[in-house]
C-alpha cells in the first residue's frame, strides 16, 4: 500500500468531499433542467387559464391550479392559528412535567409519519365518518392535520429562539404573561413562524398521497362551487396524466410538472432567502 503524506492526502480528501457535494446537488439541477427544457413549450396563457380538453390531452390545467390553491390555503388557514396557539401553550404556559414532555416528543415524532398514513386517516375520518365526502374540505382538514406537527415544531423553535431574559425583563416590569408574549415574544418569533408557514405551504402544495382519496378527482370540467366539491389538484393531475392516460402528449405532462415545480420552488426559495436574511439581521 502506498503511504501518502498528510498534505497530499488532505488534497485528495477535499477533492472527494467536493465531488460528493456536487453529486448531492446535481440531481435537483438536472430535474429542474429536464422539466424546463421539455415543459416550457407547453406553457401559454391558455394552458394556465383554460379547462382541459380531449380527455385532458389538450387544453389547460386551470381547474387543477384552482383546486390545489383552494385546498392548500384552506388547510393553512386551519392549521396555522391552531398550530401557533398550541406552540405558545406548550412553550410558554405548559408546566414542565412528564405529560408535557410526552406531548412534545409525540408531536415532534408525528412530523415524520408518512403522508399516505395521514391520507388514510383523513379518508376514514373526514370522508367516511364525518360524511364530508371526497371534497376540498376533507382534503384541507387532512393536510392541516398532517401539517400541524410541523407548524407546532417550527413555531416552538421560533419561540424558543427568543431569549428567556427578554421575558423576564418584561415580567419584572409588571407586564402580564400574555402581554409579554404578545408584545415581546411573538414579534421576535414572527419571522421564524412565517418562514415555517411558507415552507409548509410549499410542501403541502406538492403533496399527492394525502389528497389522493380525500379531495382529488380525476377530471372535473368546472371550477369548484362549494367546499364540499371534489376538485382537480395539480400534483394528482400530474400523477394521472403521467401514469394512467395512454398517448398523452409529453409536453403537456412536462408543462404540468413545470407549473407545479414553479409554484412549489418559488415559495421555498422565498422562505430560504427570508430565513438567511432574518438570521443575519437578528438583533441579539
Amino acid at each position, binding site marked *: 500500500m502506498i503511504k501518502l503524506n*498528510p*498534505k497530499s492526502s*488532505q488534497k485528495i*480528501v*477535499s477533492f472527494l*468531499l467536493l465531488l*460528493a*457535494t456536487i*453529486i*448531492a*446537488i446535481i*440531481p*435537483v*439541477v438536472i*430535474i429542474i433542467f*429536464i*422539466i424546463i427544457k421539455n415543459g416550457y413549450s407547453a406553457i401559454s396563457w391558455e394552458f394556465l387559464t383554460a379547462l382541459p380538453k380531449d380527455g385532458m390531452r389538450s387544453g389547460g390545467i386551470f381547474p387543477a391550479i384552482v383546486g390545489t390553491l383552494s385546498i392548500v390555503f384552506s388547510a393553512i388557514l386551519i392549521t396555522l392559528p*391552531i398550530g401557533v*396557539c*398550541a406552540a405558545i*401553550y*406548550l412553550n410558554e*404556559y405548559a408546566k414542565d412535567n412528564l405529560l408535557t414532555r410526552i*406531548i412534545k*416528543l*409525540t408531536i415532534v*415524532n*408525528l412530523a*415524520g*409519519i*408518512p*403522508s*399516505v*398514513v395521514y*391520507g*388514510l*386517516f383523513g379518508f*376514514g*375520518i373526514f370522508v367516511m365518518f364525518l360524511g364530508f365526502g371526497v371534497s376540498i374540505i376533507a382534503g384541507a382538514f387532512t393536510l392541516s*392535520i398532517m401539517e*400541524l*406537527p410541523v407548524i*407546532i415544531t417550527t413555531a416552538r423553535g421560533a419561540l424558543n429562539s427568543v431569549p428567556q431574559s427578554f421575558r423576564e425583563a418584561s415580567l419584572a416590569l409588571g407586564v*402580564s404573561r*400574555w402581554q409579554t408574549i*404578545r408584545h415581546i415574544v411573538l414579534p421576535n418569533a414572527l419571522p421564524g413562524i412565517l418562514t415555517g408557514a411558507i415552507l409548509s405551504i410549499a410542501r403541502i402544495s*406538492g*403533496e*399527492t398521497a394525502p389528497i389522493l*382519496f380525500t379531495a382529488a378527482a380525476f377530471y372535473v370540467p368546472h371550477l369548484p362551487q362549494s367546499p364540499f366539491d371534489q376538485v382537480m389538484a395539480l*400534483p*394528482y393531475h*400530474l*400523477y394521472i396524466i403521467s401514469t394512467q392516460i395512454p398517448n398523452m402528449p*409529453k409536453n403537456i405532462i412536462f408543462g404540468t410538472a413545470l407549473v*407545479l415545480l414553479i409554484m*412549489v*420552488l418559488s415559495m421555498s426559495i422565498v422562505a*430560504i432567502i427570508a430565513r*438567511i436574511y432574518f438570521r443575519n439581521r437578528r438583533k441579539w
Partner: protein
Amino acid sequence: MQKHQAKREKNMSKIKDDIIEKIIFLCGILSIVFVTLIFAFLLKEGISFFRESSFINFILGKFWYPSSTPPEFGILSLIVGSFIVTVGACAIAVPIGIMSAVYISEFAPKSIRDILKSLVELMAAVPSVVIGFVGMVTVAPLVRSLLDIPTGLTAFTGSLMLAFMAMPTIVTISEDAIRSVPWEYKEGALALGATKWQTIRRIVLKAAMPGIIGAIMLGIGRVIGETMAVMMITGNAAHIPSSIFEPVRTMTATIAAEMGETVKGGLHYRALFAIALVLFSITFLVNFIADMFLGKSKNK
C-alpha cells in the same frame, strides 16, 4: 373620574387577556386531541382486522391477493419491498450525504456555504410526484438499457431516486451536528500538528456522531414513508424479489394504489389500515430513535 375610567379600561383588557389565554389553552388541548385521535382511529380500524386474521399470518404471509377468493393478506413481500428500497437508498445517500455535510461545514468557503446548503434543501422542496415522473421517463429507461433487463421500474431505480430525496435531511442535520462541535476540540488537535482532515476524522466526526446517526435515522424515516415516487418507479409487483433489479412493491404504495378500490369497512379496507398501523409504528420508532440521538447531541 378619570381614574375610574382607567380602571375600567384596565379590567376590560384583563378580561381580553383571559379570553385569549383560554383560546390558547384550548388550541393546545385541541392539537393533543387530534394527535390521540389519529392513533386511536388507526388502532381501532387496524385491530379490527386482526380479529379476523392473525397478526403472524399478516406479517409473515408471503401472498398479497386482496381480491381473489378467498383473499390473502400477507404483507411480507411488501415489508421486504420497503426494506430493500430503503437499504438501497441509504447505501447511496448516507456516504454521499455525510461527505457533503463535512465539505459544507468544514471545507467550503464561507461565501458559498449558504448557497450550497440552500441548493441541497431545494431538493427537499421538489414534490415527490415530480421526482417520480422524472425518474419514470429518464432514469428508468436508462437503467433498462444499461443493464439489459425487461423493465427499468425496479427496486434499484426506486432506491436511486429516494436517495436523492433523503439527501437533504441527512446533509442539513449532519451539517448542524458537525458545526456545533466546539471549536476548542479542533483547536486542541490542530495545535498538536494534526492536519485538518485528521482532526475532522478523529475528533470532529466522533463528537458529531450522535447528530449524524440522528440525521440518518430521519433520512430512513423519510424513505420508508415515501409514497408517490415509489409507486411510480418501483414497478409495483407484490412478490419477494431475488435481486434489486426486479420490481418490488412497498407498503406505502399498496395503500395509495388500493384505497380507492376498497369497500368501506370491508376486510381489504381494514387490511390497509393494518398496514398503515405497521407503517405508523415503524416510522414512529425510527423518529423516536432519531430524536434521542439528536437530543443527546444537543445537550452536549
